[in-house]
């Protein structure tokens, strides 16, 4: 009897039906993810050092001048305009929650965190930050003045792209840039025909439903019941013209990056 089961298991495991076809861009997705993890790890190390400094009671002013890059450099200008004072610890990925509404162009959202008067509150633990109640914004937000669909020339004029860009695909069709607030070299992907087709939110920015880096997968699904699985992440289609989607990349448990993607993207792999 045992032998029968042994044989059956071997036969089942050698069955062709176990084959899973990979999508053509599966390799590229892995390479992008590996690169993202490597960069996040170094960013988290930096953040850890910053948290240690805060713990030791070093003032925010000193903190700002002691970092490798200042908060001002990292802050997206359009997002900062909704805060009366720029938060200074935007590099703290793990603990910093700055309640900056993702769509800063939408003042009617009534987000209670919009007028954040005290930079000190930006170091509050994530758990104490209330989820903003307003309905989902269906218009894509701007990041550093960058928006989906913006042409490469216009995007470069904002000064928010880190030059030089690099080829986003093997054919060199689209161009990838890091942005001032997101060091990932593929933070923004620009198509010659459609403009910006892929844009990454800074780690401290939130979507209008309060989703940000660190939000659990369960909470994303609660906030966006229409979310569908897409590779290792979640995709939420927004009802706007032109059509676009949030892509929440996750590690299986929590969000690791928030991207906005033009549905009509013609950049391979994005």
């Amino acid at each position, binding site marked *: 009897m045992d032998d029968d089961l042994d044989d059956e298991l071997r036969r089942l495991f050698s069955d062709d*039906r176990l*084959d899973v076809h990979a999508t053509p861009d599966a390799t590229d997705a892995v*390479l992008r993810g590996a690169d993202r*993890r490597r960069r996040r790890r170094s960013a988290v190390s930096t953040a850890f050092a910053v948290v240690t400094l805060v713990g030791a009671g070093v003032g925010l002013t000193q903190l700002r001048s002691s970092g490798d890059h200042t908060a001002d450099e990292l802050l997206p200008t359009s997002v900062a305009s909704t805060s009366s004072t720029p938060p200074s610890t935007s590099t703290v990925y793990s603990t910093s929650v700055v309640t900056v509404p993702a769509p800063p162009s939408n003042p009617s959202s009534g987000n209670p965190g919009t007028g954040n008067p005290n930079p000190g509150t930006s170091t509050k633990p994530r758990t104490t930050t209330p989820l903003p109640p307003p309905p989902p914004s269906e218009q894509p937000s701007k990041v550093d003045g960058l928006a989906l669909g913006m042409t490469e020339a216009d995007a470069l004029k904002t000064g928010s792209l880190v030059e030089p860009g690099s080829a986003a695909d093997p054919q060199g069709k689209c161009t990838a840039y890091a942005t001032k607030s997101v060091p990932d070299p593929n933070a923004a992907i620009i198509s010659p025909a459609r403009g910006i087709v892929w844009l990454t939110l800074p780690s401290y920015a939130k979507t209008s439903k309060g989703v940000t880096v660190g939000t659990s997968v369960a909470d994303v699904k609660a906030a966006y019941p229409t979310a*569908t699985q897409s590779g290792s992440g979640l995709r939420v289609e927004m009802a706007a013209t032109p059509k676009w989607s949030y892509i929440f990349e996750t590690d299986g448990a929590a969000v690791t990056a928030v991207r906005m993607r033009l549905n009509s993207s013609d950049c391979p792999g994005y």
Partner: protein
Amino acid sequence: MTAVLQLELAAERGGGRAEAVGDFAEFVRMSMPGLLRYGHALTGNPHDAADLVQSVLEKVGSRWVAVQRKGDDPLAYVRRAMANTHISIWRRRRRENLVADLPDSGVVAPELSRLENEPLWQALRELPPRQRAVIVLRYYENLSEAEIANALGISCGTVKSQSSKAMASLRTRLGRD
């Protein structure tokens, strides 16, 4: 999990990055079909298989230079990491009570429905992930008990007991006890 932790804790070096990236890309291209298949055997469905392969390869890729320096066969290393990651993901999911089986993850398994109707496949699905991993490593990977123990970071005695429990449940579910 041990393997993954070691991976996370390994020191990072900056040298030869471009070369390492090209080398890793080739490794991914070559190993992807086999890993997806192995992931399917481990997780029981193609969507979880794709997620598992993607997440483990991302971790390995972000440490590729360190992984290669360890001198192990990278493919064996990835397979061990997948088994351990799958076990830990399952634990976490059980706590979060996540909704499973989401559509549209970009992978398609041919003739999946026929496989789904296999009593043995269904019975495997009911096994706890560590028991299932032991079975997959034994009958898919053809590893010895000592090799399974080493891969999962458990004792040979635990491998034996998990294996016999798994076989007993499979026989029960197939109505053969």
